[in-house]
């Protein structure tokens, strides 16, 4: 808790008296910075914040979460450069666009900062930029697995509600799903935007225009929650096949109610928590797991929802 108090003191000093001296901000333990690509509006990343905070507390290290406010990846590249300049022991970052981010990440690695890639990117790319390891769920593979599962359930066409179309990994999920089904993605992916009302209405409009659609695939709570409302409204809830990536409170309720057939849990908590633990142990004792860690995919269905329900939106 000391780090939070310190931040508050510093923040107060900053606002109230710009020139007053405050307590110096020297860290006790190791310092790790997690950089994500998510805009402020993406609530899913709350789990990540909680994950690193918990790991920081448990390991006795200082952790920090940073993201580009608008989701602009060029801004994210600057944040990585900045994080490297501040001299942390390690950086945990997503690799959502290799072209943009590989330069800054490699520079951080070369200047002596250890990097772990989490969430977005591929194990190959992580190795390429010189990261210690990759912790996450390979997006295409997860989509593909989901597609195979849906095909087994008799799905032939679908709607992919993409709320973060500028991230290649989002598109990978839709593409993997289409390939798993063995169909062409074509126009079955819509750019829904991030606004709940817009997402809902776009889903309604699509399903209205394409009533023969077998399934809906959403890519996270941002698109799943409004899609649930949309299905409620047009009476397709429980009738249409509904799969989603990631979990959240509403998604869990949907699974329980039978509206959502399954959620693909990539267990973001692990993506944030494990890198801090791995890095700390590496820096303290020199031990490092020999392989990448796949935090997902795990399919969450109506069976065994209890723990998920309890911690949905917080740690799950």
């Amino acid at each position: 808790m000391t780090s939070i108090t310190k931040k508050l003191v510093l923040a107060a000093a900053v606002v109230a008296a710009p020139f007053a001296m405050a307590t110096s901000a020297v860290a006790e333990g190791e310092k790790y910075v997690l950089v994500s690509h998510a805009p402020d509006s993406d609530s899913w990343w709350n789990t990540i914040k909680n994950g690193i905070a918990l790991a920081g507390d448990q390991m006795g290290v200082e952790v920090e979460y940073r993201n580009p406010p608008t989701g602009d990846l060029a801004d994210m590249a600057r944040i990585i450069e900045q994080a490297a300049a501040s001299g942390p022991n390690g950086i945990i970052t997503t690799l959502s666009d290799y072209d943009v981010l590989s330069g800054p990440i490699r520079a951080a690695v070369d200047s002596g900062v250890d990097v772990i890639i989490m969430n977005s990117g591929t194990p190959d790319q992580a190795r390429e930029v010189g990261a210690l390891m990759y912790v996450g769920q390979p997006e295409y593979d997860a989509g593909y697995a989901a597609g195979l599962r849906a095909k087994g359930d008799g799905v032939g066409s679908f709607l992919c509600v993409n709320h973060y179309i500028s991230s290649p990994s989002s598109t990978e999920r839709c593409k993997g799903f289409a390939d798993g089904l063995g169909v062409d993605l074509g126009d079955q992916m819509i750019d829904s935007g991030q606004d709940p009302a817009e997402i809902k209405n776009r889903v309604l409009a699509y399903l209205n225009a394409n009533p023969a659609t077998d399934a809906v695939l959403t890519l996270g709570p941002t698109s799943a929650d409004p899609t649930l409302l949309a299905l409620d409204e047009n009476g397709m809830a429980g009738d249409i096949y509904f799969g989603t990536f990631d979990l959240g409170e509403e998604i869990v309720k949907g699974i329980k109610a039978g509206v959502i057939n399954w959620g693909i849990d990539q267990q973001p908590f692990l993506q944030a928590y494990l890198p801090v633990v791995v890095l700390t142990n590496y820096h303290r004792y020199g031990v490092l797991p020999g392989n990448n860690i796949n935090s997902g995919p795990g399919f969450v269905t109506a069976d065994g929802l209890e723990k998920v329900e309890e911690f949905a939106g917080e740690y799950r």
Partner: protein
Amino acid sequence: MTSATQPTANSDERVKEISNFRNALIRPELGGIVGTIAVFTFFLLFAFDSGMFNSQGIMNWSQISAQFMIIAVGACLLMIAGEFDLSVGSMIGFAGMLIAIFSVTLGWPVWMAIIVTFVIAVSIGALNGFIVVRTGLPSFIVTLAFLFILRGFAIYLPQTIERKTIIGGVGDAAQGDWLAAVFGGKIFTGFFQWMGDNGIIAVFERGTRKGQPVVEGLPMLIVWAIALVIVGHIILTKTRFGNWIFAAGGDAEAARNSGVPVDKVKILMFMFTAFCATVFATCQVMEFGGAGSDRGVLKEFEAIIAVVIGGALLTGGYGSVIGAGLGALIFGVVQQGLFFAGVESSLFRVFLGVILLGAVILNTYIRRIITGER
């Protein structure tokens, strides 16, 4: 004949002599200068050994500030000419996307892609200006429309052509291209290597670049920013065209009555703003080697904020390019510095709000002094 018409030492005894202090206050850059000193003092006190003032740290906030500066110069001149451009951010995304499509998808040489993109972007700026001048609609609305139009194209074009929203590979295409180096290159690399060799700046500890300085050279981004500020400042204060910019924004009707080609000035300023946005986009694409549909979101407001912090009046007719440059510097240093100081990053907006409010209040005060309003 009344006494007032005869030359006397003081034409109106009720006008107090303005002190030097107040005289200094009415310089538009003043807020920017004070703010810059305050911000640097603050971060030197709180974040000195956090890495903010090592070579990497300095390069980091310098680049952020330089980005703001490039678009702030355009926004500043346009605001002084009495108009806004809300399409700057979308123009950044759109122009970057054009360069990527031309050079990667269509395989044009990068220099040609850049030149054609500049021509298209500046033409769109001219169209913006033409619509504003012809219809008499507020530029706020017209450019808001272009905010959506250009962002829409920045998403639609790559989606349709490449089935993705990020186009990479510009970096490979730009290898050895003369014009690409003007935007994405670095200069004084020898000097930085020398500084690295002599331990003045840090060097890479490992990897393929072991022994090379962590900061390779001065990015062209920063060169562009400084050059634009200087050119903008000279145009505004030292040329007759600069006088027209002030006049067009101060009172378009009065300027027209005096024979100032107000419409032409405004259209040219819209074109210049588009030019600056394209410089931003080109530097970004050349540095990162790719373009994304969501580049530049909200940058138009950041530009306007930098300009206002720098002392320009939102109503036009008053402002300074140097001030806007300092505003951009403050913006960049605060944004990056809060992280170095260990302040929760979400508090950045609180700061921005406080600085913006302070700047606007100061500006209003300054205008009262200038115009003698009470």
